[in-house]
């Protein structure tokens, strides 16, 4: 099998699973309890918090644990909207955010009368910091921009936007789900107030994520209950998940540079080969400012799903956009935002590479895909026409 969908999810490393094991069984204690076995669990949870804080260049007390990237983004957005609704009702985001951000914005618009500006992007998917500046109003309470796009891999100028946010005193959430584990992150350098991450995107377990909250940032929790996480995120802690995430951070930190250079070589090879072998395709995303593992392309006159099915027959796992929109019929909102016509956007493929990929994977894909495209184009009313 050739797995080329690491942006959707990654395998949890065996050593991470191993690490979690005893915190499921022997050391299963509730970290909030008073007896000494629980105190040991509490300590390990706090150690994990330190590791994750270190991973993001944050302070331990600035990290809360969540159930994943979606929850982190929801807390950041709804939490600051509710906390600051006396101050204003305007939110700035981009048109290419993940649905965890976009749909939370839509919820705040529809249910609570917030106004949201969805900034455009250029043809590469880059958000212009000047556009952020121009969109600021007296009522603006929050900016939410992703660090890198999950579909096309384009890396956004977060540091510049962070500066603007800081200068204007506006809370800034950055959806860092696709960069955490791929690129070193310093929340301090980026000038962000919130930063969302999800462990399963960097070889950690599913169902656990974190939210960085800069000290002093105003927000209200979206869930209510006991006072775990200082009441900011109640519910019995997912101790094995927390420990697994910390372990995954540690491993990612060590392997990041190596992963980057290897995956970039493979991705470039894939890109160059496919461009050469398949006529009329276009590469989406920024040529340089792009995640080193991501290749998004549009194959004209062919629809994405049919290519994916044929790739699957050959044992190749890829996607046409984000996994969590696979239940949608419409073309990717990201590709449309780049100005790509819908019929072209329909023929999109995303390959996202990861730690287990080899040159053989790339070779196989380059061998298989051109044939698939050729066959499907034969079937296409549009291709024949030419």
């Amino acid at each position, binding site marked *: 099998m050739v797995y080329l969908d690491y942006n959707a999810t990654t395998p949890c490393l065996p050593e991470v699973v191993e690490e979690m094991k005893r915190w499921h069984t022997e050391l299963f204690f509730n970290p909030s309890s008073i007896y000494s076995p629980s105190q040991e669990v509490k300590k390990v949870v706090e150690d994990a918090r330190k590791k994750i804080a270190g991973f993001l260049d944050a302070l331990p007390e600035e990290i809360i644990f969540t159930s994943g990237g979606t929850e982190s983004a929801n807390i950041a957005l709804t939490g600051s909207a509710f906390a600051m609704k006396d101050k204003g009702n305007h939110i700035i985001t981009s048109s290419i955010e993940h649905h965890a951000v976009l749909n939370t914005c839509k919820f705040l618009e529809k249910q609570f009368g917030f106004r949201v500006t969805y900034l455009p992007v250029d043809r590469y998917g880059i958000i212009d910091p000047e556009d952020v500046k121009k969109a600021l109003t007296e009522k603006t309470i929050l900016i939410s921009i992703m660090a890198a796009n999950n579909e096309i891999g384009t890396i956004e100028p977060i540091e510049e936007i962070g500066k603007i946010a800081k200068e204007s005193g506006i809370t800034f959430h950055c959806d860092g789900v696709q960069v955490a584990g791929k690129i070193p992150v310093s929340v301090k350098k980026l000038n962000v107030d919130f930063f969302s991450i999800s462990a399963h995107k960097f070889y950690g377990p599913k169902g656990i994520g974190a939210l960085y909250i800069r000290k002093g940032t105003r927000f209200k929790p979206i869930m209510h209950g006991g006072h775990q996480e200082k009441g900011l995120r109640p519910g019995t802690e997912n101790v094995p998940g927390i420990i697994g995430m910390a372990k995954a951070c540690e491993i990612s930190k060590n392997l990041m540079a190596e992963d980057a250079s290897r995956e970039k070589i493979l991705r470039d090879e894939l890109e160059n080969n496919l461009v050469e072998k398949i006529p009329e395709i276009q590469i989406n995303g920024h040529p340089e400012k792009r995640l080193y593992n991501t290749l998004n392309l549009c194959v004209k*006159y*062919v*629809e994405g*799903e*049919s290519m994916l*099915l044929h790739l699957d*027959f050959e044992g190749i796992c890829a996607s046409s956009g984000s996994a969590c929109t696979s*239940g949608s*019929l*419409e*073309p990717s909102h990201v590709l449309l935002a780049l100005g790509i016509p*819908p*019929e072209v956007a*329909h023929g999109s493929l995303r390959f996202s590479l990861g730690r287990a990929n080899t040159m053989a994977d790339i070779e196989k894909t380059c061998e298989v895909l051109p044939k698939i495209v050729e066959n499907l184009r*034969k*079937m*296409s*009313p*549009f291709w*024949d026409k030419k």
Partner: protein
Amino acid sequence: MYTEKLLDHFKNPRNMGRIENPDGIGKVGNPVCGDVMWIYIKVKDNRIEDIKFETFGCGAAIATSSVITELAKGKTIEEAEKITNKDVIDVLEGLPPLKKHCSLLAEEGLHAAIEDYRKKQNSQK
């Protein structure tokens, strides 16, 4: 998500291609998903002698194209007109809810081709 039957039709689509100088052609598309289906028919003695399709679309669009052409082939125009998307779904042994509309596209494509054939017949009269 897809049945074995569907995957078979998708992999080995029957009647794929184009008929030069067809007696009828149906060009249909779904504006939401952007999929497009063209159905060509050749009619002889009121019977669909040959039928072919060209489809730009999802797996279900291709498979339902294949099935509808198989179902229509050899039928009289009146018989073919009675073929519905339900017949297509039956042959495929089911479709995911989100993909029901693909089979409707196939039904529409066939009906459009027959209509086109009728129109041409009338204009020849």
